[in-house]
């Protein structure tokens, strides 16, 4: 079963390095569990992390394997077009910094729905927000678990279906243990360790690549062009991946909009703002996250062109995992099997940490929003069993993710990450912004915008070339692809902003002015915001 994946890789070495990561993080998670007693501990790590710690964890949550392997590989093959992704992913953080992070920290307790339902009818709005949270988290989770299957083929040479299923299961089980035992505190430490490893690994490789070219970016680009074959020159400008037709250009515009507006609506990003003691620390977290993520994407630019120059697109396309193999192959070319092993382990650690962050978010939303506040209608007694419900939810979500990861193994589900961003931008962001800034916004407006955004986004994907009608579709021979774009954001995001407005204007209900007064004053001043837990 175990054979070389990427040429020259040593599977035993890769697995050993990864195992060391798992053991170290498990020890830390078990230590973190000692101080996890209350719901605030479990969901929000007692709100005791500092801004810089949370900022590192945010970058850990955000920099998935897709953004490491995927972007570096896209730059290696498509050149400039790969770089466009990272810019959308980075600029998006300004929405979180300027409009969302601090206000959300001041008004919520544990979940995104706390803020969305603050001045609305609790039951319906919480339910909608929880459904959207679960949808975004699950699609994102499925993409990561599916990626784990592909990554083992690439890095460990595990190509049998049973072997890949086993690895996906191991990833799922370790992730469930992180969440069950460590809660948010343990999960946050896993994110921090992973982010440090990932960014340090990318830094070392970047310096190494640049060193080969006398720290001259222009000569690195020139070498990438020389190794890029006949179309090598096109690597330096946009259009190689998206420029083919009018539709593909529109598709890229649509993706760009979803990326920039999606981040501030991602529930697992928003939930992290509750782990710090104040709005000021939430602000510091975003600043740290922006700097780390920005610097990391600059590294991937060098790594991508470096892989194009030092490995070459032919070899990358011939390797298992194709585009995703660019960064591991570059590590191999630079530092041999040991560096490859380290980078492989970091890629695994990345998947593990991201799925843990998603699972705790989804389980918190189920337990806190649906169980306590909708099913039990905020009953005090039910709050005592809340953490227990959240833990069970984490197990169920983890198992679903394992099953989903195994069932979709071998399918190309890369579109799921873009879909998660598109849903976050359409179903969550309009309601977050309207709730915080628009006095007249009502429950009807919130429900129209959230359900509308969710249904339109998923509906357009179903009728897009992603699902049918194209060679790369899930059902290539069927034809119900009447919507031409693979990224629905261009249509669904403006529509859900419009629906939020129309629901408010046309709905019979009126905004609760005293609740808005409370929300606005609390959001801006931090009065009676949730404080850190003193142990």
């Amino acid at each position, binding site marked *: 079963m175990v054979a070389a994946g990427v040429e020259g890789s040593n599977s035993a070495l890769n697995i050993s390095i990864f195992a060391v990561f798992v053991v170290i993080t498990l020890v830390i998670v078990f230590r973190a569990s000692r101080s996890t007693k*209350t*719901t*605030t501990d479990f969901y929000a790590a007692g709100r005791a992390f500092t801004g810089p710690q949370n900022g590192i964890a945010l970058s850990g949550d955000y920099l998935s394997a897709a953004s490491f392997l995927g972007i570096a590989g896209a730059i290696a093959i498509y050149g*400039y077009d790969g*770089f*466009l992704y990272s*810019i*959308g992913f*980075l*600029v998006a*953080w*300004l*929405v979180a*910094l*300027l*409009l969302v992070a*601090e206000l959300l920290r001041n008004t919520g*307790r544990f979940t995104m729905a706390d803020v969305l339902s603050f001045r609305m009818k609790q039951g319906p709005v919480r339910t909608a927000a929880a459904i959207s949270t679960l949808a975004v988290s699950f699609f994102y989770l499925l993409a990561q678990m599916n990626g784990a299957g592909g990554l083992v083929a690439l890095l460990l040479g595990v190509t049998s279906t049973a072997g890949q299923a086993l690895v996906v299961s191991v990833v799922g089980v370790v992730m469930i243990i992180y969440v069950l035992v460590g809660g948010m505190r343990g999960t946050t430490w896993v994110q921090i360790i992973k982010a440090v490893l990932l960014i340090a690994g990318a830094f070392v490789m970047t310096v190494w690549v640049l060193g080969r070219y006398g720290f001259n*970016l*222009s000569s690195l*680009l*020139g070498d990438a*062009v020389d190794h890029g074959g006949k179309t090598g020159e*096109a690597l*330096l*400008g*946009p*259009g190689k991946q*998206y*420029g083919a037709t009018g539709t593909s250009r529109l598709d*890229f*515009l649509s993706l*760009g909009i979803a990326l*920039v507006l999606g981040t501030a609506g991602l529930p697992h990003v928003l939930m992290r703002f509750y782990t710090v003691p104040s709005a*000021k620390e939430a*602000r510091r977290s975003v*600043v740290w996250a*922006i*700097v780390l993520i*920005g610097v990391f*994407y*600059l590294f991937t630019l060098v790594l991508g062109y470096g892989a194009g120059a030092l490995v070459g697109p032919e070899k990358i396309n011939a390797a298992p995992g194709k585009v995703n193999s660019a960064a591991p192959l570059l590590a191999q070319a630079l530092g041999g099997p040991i560096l490859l092993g380290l980078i492989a382990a970091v890629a695994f650690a990345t998947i593990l940490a991201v799925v843990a962050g998603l699972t705790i978010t989804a389980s918190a939303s189920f337990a806190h929003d649906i169980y306590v506040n909708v099913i039990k209608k905020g009953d005090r007694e039910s*709050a005592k069993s809340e953490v227990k419900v959240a833990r069970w939810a984490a197990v169920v979500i983890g198992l679903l993710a394992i099953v989903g990861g195994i069932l979709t193994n071998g399918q190309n589900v890369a579109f799921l990450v873009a879909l998660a961003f598109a849903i976050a931008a359409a179903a969550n962001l309009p309601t977050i912004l309207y709730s915080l*800034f628009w006095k007249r916004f009502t429950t009807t407006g919130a429900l129209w915008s959230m359900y509308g955004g969710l249904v339109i986004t998923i509906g357009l994907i179903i009728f897009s070339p992603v699902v049918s009608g194209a060679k790369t579709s899930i059902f290539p021979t069927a034809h119900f692809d009447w919507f031409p774009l693979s990224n629905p954001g261009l249509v669904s995001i403006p529509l859900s902003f419009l629906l939020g407005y129309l629901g408010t204007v046309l709905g019979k209900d009126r905004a609760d*002015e*005293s609740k808005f*007064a*409370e929300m*606005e*004053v*609390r959001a*801006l*001043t*931090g*009065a*009676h915001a*949730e*404080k850190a*837990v*003193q142990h």
Partner: protein
Amino acid sequence: MGTTEDPAAATPATTDWSEVQASPDFAELRRRLRGFVFPMAGLFLAWYLLYVLLADYAHGFMSTKLFGNITVGLVFGLLQFVSTFVITGLYVRFANRVVDPAADKIRHEIEGDDQ
């Protein structure tokens, strides 16, 4: 203060939020915050959209070489990084100098009354 497990304890009914909301201090805080974040958000979104549209529809211009193998598109892209870092820095300076003192003052007035 200890844990804040009880939402009712965190939100005493004694605060008249509407009164605070109507106060000149709060109106000034809101005006200054919105006066900074809304134009800034509009600015960076427009700047980003311009970049995406150029990358999407002006391939020739973006592929023009400025020096060596450095193209207009690469410089434009790197400028998006620069602008993101600059806006982050400007906002933090604004928040520390303007928002925090005003917000702290109002918060102390609210929380001081009922503790």
